[in-house]
């Protein structure tokens, strides 16, 4: 069986994760002192990814029911990382915070994606009939 709701959530999550990965690539590039040239194309790409994340993050996190835990951290990352050049000019402490918060967001999204994929796999092994029969005849949870 395939759940449309689950597929939609997975699609949103995959798109969101893809953007966070791209953002991280550019942040890493910005922090790499061995690469002195930052092109306008890279800045444009960074702004585009940031714009996508700014407008989509809250909506996607709400759809996934993880808005409370992650919204603040995601916004902190997006506010600190204003441009590739801006990332390069951050202090050591700010860079550490940026990486920590990016990691928190990425880890949580990755975990949720894994959970959704596990659900999808479980559903794929069931027919619509067995799924609904299972729900119908499942024993109710007994209160301790």
């Amino acid at each position, binding site marked *: 069986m*395939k759940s*449309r709701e689950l597929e939609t959530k997975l699609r949103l999550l995959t798109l969101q994760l893809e953007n966070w990965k791209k953002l991280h690539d550019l942040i890493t590039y910005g922090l790499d002192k061995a690469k002195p040239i930052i092109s306008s194309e890279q800045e444009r790409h960074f702004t585009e990814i940031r714009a996508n994340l700014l407008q989509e993050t809250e909506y996607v996190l709400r759809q996934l029911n993880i808005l409370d835990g992650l919204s603040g951290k995601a916004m902190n990352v997006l506010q600190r990382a204003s441009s590739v050049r801006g990332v390069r000019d951050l202090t050591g402490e700010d860079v550490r915070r940026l990486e920590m918060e990016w990691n928190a967001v990425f880890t949580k999204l990755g975990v949720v994606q894994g959970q959704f994929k596990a659900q999808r796999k479980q559903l794929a*092994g069931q027919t619509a009939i067995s799924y609904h029969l299972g729900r119908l005849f499942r024993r109710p949870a007994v209160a301790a």
Partner: protein
Amino acid sequence: MWLHRRTLRRRWCAGRGGSDSLGNTPQASFLLSWLLQHFEAVETRVLILNADPVFQDRALAVFDGLDLETEVVRTFPEAIVSLLAENFDAFVIEGQPAAAMEQATNARQHFPSLRIVCLSAQAHPHDVALVGEQQKIELISYAWTTRGLRRRIERFVRSIETPGAPSAEGVDPCHSLVGNLNQFSAAEILQMSCLSQRSGRFTFKSGRGNSEIYLQHGSVRHAVFGSLEGESAVAEVFRWRQGRFYFEEGVISQVQTVDRPWAHLLIDNLQKLDETLELASV
């Protein structure tokens, strides 16, 4: 309805595959897992280009409910990278009619055999529809109700679902040359055969399908791939990076669909390939 039948058939296999603990013999488990893998392998793959896939997702929501694998990209260069790297059964471009058609026309030049669809929230103007017809680009409009849109998308998906029969392998004694496209590109082997003034038939087999190119005295005489014939079929084979090829000496085509010298074809197609790679790096 057909989609549902196909889904049920596949789910039956999936359900049975998971019941090893219920006492299936190892042979039955193996057979079922093979069936499962087989059915998994023929899943239709669609690439969807949508600049705003989170908020403009009416059509994407329809695709979510269908039994197929989708990949969503936001920009045209990303789409080209995906099309070059992986095999897709169709490419769906969602957006304003004129802009989507421009991208579709561009994609058509580089991927002649690909099924391309333009999805748009508005009805397609007459000139856009005309270009679509010329370039073999299908048009689906959102102006329909969601149910109508779903029906049209389902019909389109049904039309691209192929049986996915694995191509027959094995060396026939009449094959004078056999090889892999990941070791020698089509351009290399065709160049070699044309330089040595060969006459015969090249058969290329890949996940995309089979194609035949006929040579006569070192020139390409006829090429066919699905509904494509002539130079566009040659252009298609140039892009293949995976698959096998066989050459049968002396098989001559009565039909002639290519009348340009090999050198011209080679230069044009290599140039086209470079242009495709350039698009991907924009």
